[in-house]
């Protein structure tokens, strides 16, 4: 298992490197000169030159990249052009917000998706199967932010069970945290749970036809035990293989859903950075997100290895 982890981590280094080159060169393509943006029309030529020098913009692009990468490796992602706060600090401050939203919605998506997929697979063509298939088809067509709005209308404005906006940190009050992330997470998790339900269903239908399921039943193990232990463990193998993709989608979706609930997470930060063309902030955001995605991939790879003995290096 250690070897697997080591292998994966090593394989991720080039990916991170390529992403950093990409983001750096992309953001260097910004049409407007950041010095003009910051100083506006007002500054004198000397002021412009001085700022340019201080920001290192007079250097060739490869030198700037090397300097940026050198700092990034040590956790320093630069300073925002506009608020003069450290990008690392700004991102780290918002990270728990987006992360808890993504994680909680992933949990909901997995639980709902697996339950619906299994229920559908147990009796193909039954009412449960039809409902699950219908739900999955709809779930993938509903925009998460619209679903969020509807949830707000019903459960926040109408029933007043949950707050309509805002986010409470887990460290401040776990119960308020739960209340604040429930609606956004349900909104966000819907389409992922639909996708997972589809995958679980088809995997489970296949597994239930396998000889080892019949053999386990012939050995007198109970129906629920055979389904939940023997069948589901195998059915989850292909599902886990694409789970990291689903979580990547959730992370992206969180950026939008945050806006519905006025949650101050990475999404708000990113939208602000785009409007202001805040290059260091955008670079930092992309890099942190890729790092997150990569971490998720690593975790799902490990779970995949645990579920599927054939995938382990011997």
């Amino acid at each position, binding site marked *: 298992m250690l070897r697997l982890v080591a292998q994966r981590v090593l394989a991720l280094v080039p990916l991170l490197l390529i992403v950093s080159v990409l983001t750096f060169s992309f953001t260097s393509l910004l049409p407007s000169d950041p010095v003009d943006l910051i100083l506006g029309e007002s500054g004198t030529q000397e002021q412009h030159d001085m700022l340019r020098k201080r920001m290192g913009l007079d250097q060739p692009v490869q030198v700037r990249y090397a300097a940026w990468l050198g700092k990034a490796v040590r956790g320093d992602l630069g300073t925002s052009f506009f608020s003069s706060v450290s990008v690392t600090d700004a991102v780290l401050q918002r990270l728990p917000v987006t992360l808890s939203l993504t994680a909680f919605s992933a949990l909901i998506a997995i639980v709902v998706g697996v339950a619906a997929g299994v229920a559908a697979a147990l009796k193909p063509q039954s009412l449960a199967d039809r409902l699950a298939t219908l739900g999955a088809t709809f779930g993938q*067509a509903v925009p998460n932010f619209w679903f969020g709005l509807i949830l707000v209308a019903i459960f926040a404005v109408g029933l007043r069970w949950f707050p309509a906006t805002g986010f409470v940190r887990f460290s401040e009050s776990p119960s308020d945290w739960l209340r604040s992330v429930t609606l956004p997470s349900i909104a966000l998790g819907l389409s992922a749970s639909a996708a997972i339900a589809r995958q679980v269903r088809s995997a489970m239908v296949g597994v239930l036809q396998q000889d080892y399921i019949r053999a386990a039943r012939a050995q007198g193990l109970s129906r629920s035990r055979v389904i939940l232990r023997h069948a589901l463990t195998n059915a989850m193998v292909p599902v886990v293989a694409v789970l990291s993709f689903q979580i990547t989608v959730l992370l992206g979706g969180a950026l939008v859903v945050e806006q519905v609930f006025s949650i101050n997470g990475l999404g708000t930060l990113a939208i602000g950075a785009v409007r202001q063309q805040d290059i260091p902030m955008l670079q930092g955001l992309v890099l942190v997100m890729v790092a997150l995605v990569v971490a998720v991939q690593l975790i799902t790879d490990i779970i995949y290895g645990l579920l599927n003995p054939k995938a382990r290096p011997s």
Partner: protein
Amino acid sequence: MSAAAIAGESDAPRRSRRKPEASMLIVAFAATVLGVLFLLAVLADWVSPYDPLQQDLMSALQWPSSAHWLGTDDLGRDVLSRLIYGCRIAVIATAEATAIALVIGVPIGLFIGYRGGWWDWIVMRVVEALVSIPGIMVAIVIIAILGPGLHRAMIALGILFSTSFLRLTRGVVLAEREEVYVRSARVVGASETRILLRHIFPNIAPPLIVQTTLTVGAVLLAEAGLSFIGLGIQPPQASWGTMLNTAAAFMDLNWFLAIPPGVAIILTVLSVNLLGDVLRDSIGRGIAAAAPPPASAPRVAPLLARAPSDSPQSSRSDEMLRIEALDIVIAMPGATEIPVITDVSLAIAKGETLGLVGESGSGKTLTGLAILGLLGPVLRMTHGSIRLNGRAIHDLDQKALEAVRGSEVAMVFQDPTTSLNPAFTVGSQIAEVLRIKNGLSAEDARRRTVQLIDRVGIPRAAERAQAYPHELSGGMAQRIAIARALSCNPSLLIADEPTTALDVTVQQEILDLFRDLQDEFGMAMMFVTHDLAVAADVCNRIAVMYAGEVVETAEVDALFADPRHPYTRGLLSALPQGSSRNPPLPIIPGSVPRPGTWPTGCRFQNRCDRRVEACEARIPLVGAERMVRCVHYQNARLKAVLS
């Protein structure tokens, strides 16, 4: 069988995703929605009741009324009109982004797939990097460079979605590049462009069409999302995304604002996705082959009403298993029941091994599964009884059946590599049974597991218990399966072709193991096989099955010395050694008729060289010690009695 629906053995044909009529309905629905969308987009200037930008602050945030069918927004603009103009934006936006994605993705995919080498490596690494960033973030960065707005946002989405076209095209090209026709085109000197366009491109078209539909749905959602967060279409222009942006600000005052654009997005995306699903299904399998017509039940000759059973069998005191007049049918909803097992009666004494012999399709395995109550949802026992140690087990409820399985009757299956769960170590699969069925502690179960593995002749048992099924050879895996079956000391072991999937050299070892174990554990055994030689090796008695019924039963020696049913004789003559004992007979022509196509009367008549008119009538199984179901034997007996 009362315990019908059992997970795991659903023999239901894999469902084709949709029935043809259903997909026609879906296509009709989707086409209607998209047709209306297009019409509204084209005719927006004429059909929308108001100017979508015309403000009227006096009537802001109104609920639906006769003047404003869908109400008004915060600036008093007519929601219906904005929705209709939103159709136009939706069509333009998705067309633009999808076209850009195609124009970027397909040529690059063609190029790198065909060229390979460094180009391929570099482009694919970049694509991998792009794909590992959440899509919306990629779009955000591109919009940061280009600036917001309809067309620029769509360029961003086009670049984002081009990766899926690129990968798809590259994959197809890689596969096609080495095809014979492409190579031969190259040999005759066709230019590379010509090869790509004339020979390879047509193969990419079908998957590209499917991918395009899927992309259109995703683009619609992404465009709405970008406009919602204010980075796509800019106000005051009416798009569904910007309308939702407005709605979000006034949820507490007028929640209805969110409904029209939301429903429009859902309906459109749903239609496009459904269309994509149908396309994928039909392109993937070929429309004609998508769903074979449900097997209409062939006419089945009504089974003769019979006396309690026409196959009496002397009851013996040391009987372990007794099956009486067993009938099993295929019962599909909405179809006539098709018999697969009729009037099967068998008995096995303590310590005895009964061979159940016949070609595949004769119903041997089903008889075994019926004993365990594992027939599944499609097969149903309609008549007869199954008794184990004198107790009826065919009408037990699920719980009681589970108690019988494993503990009193256990089964070893044909293919050991598929009958062990690939996710768990072989030791844990045996230990699980010991813990659950026998209530052993984890420690005791482990110790007993190692003993069992050792007992079935596997060296270094403790170490092998830690192995996964895929790490074992077929013979080794079958020994494990046998060890698991024996773990609860069953009084009856059903072995279903346990050596068929194994190498010939291993077969004999496994057969020896069965004989040894039976002596040691003193259980009765039902040995299902198509191979009379194997049966002769391990069995005391043999029941020959053909097309769902028993045609002959006898002690092994008697059967080999004097086979009475023509089918038995045919089976014997097919054995290599058989021919030395009997005059050589041709191998039985034809094959076992499928259930539902059985002839009335003797089911073997169409393959029999001794067929007479009387074979058309139903033939009972007659005899005492040995029994035969054949008109010739029946006549012989009759004559003997009469004279």
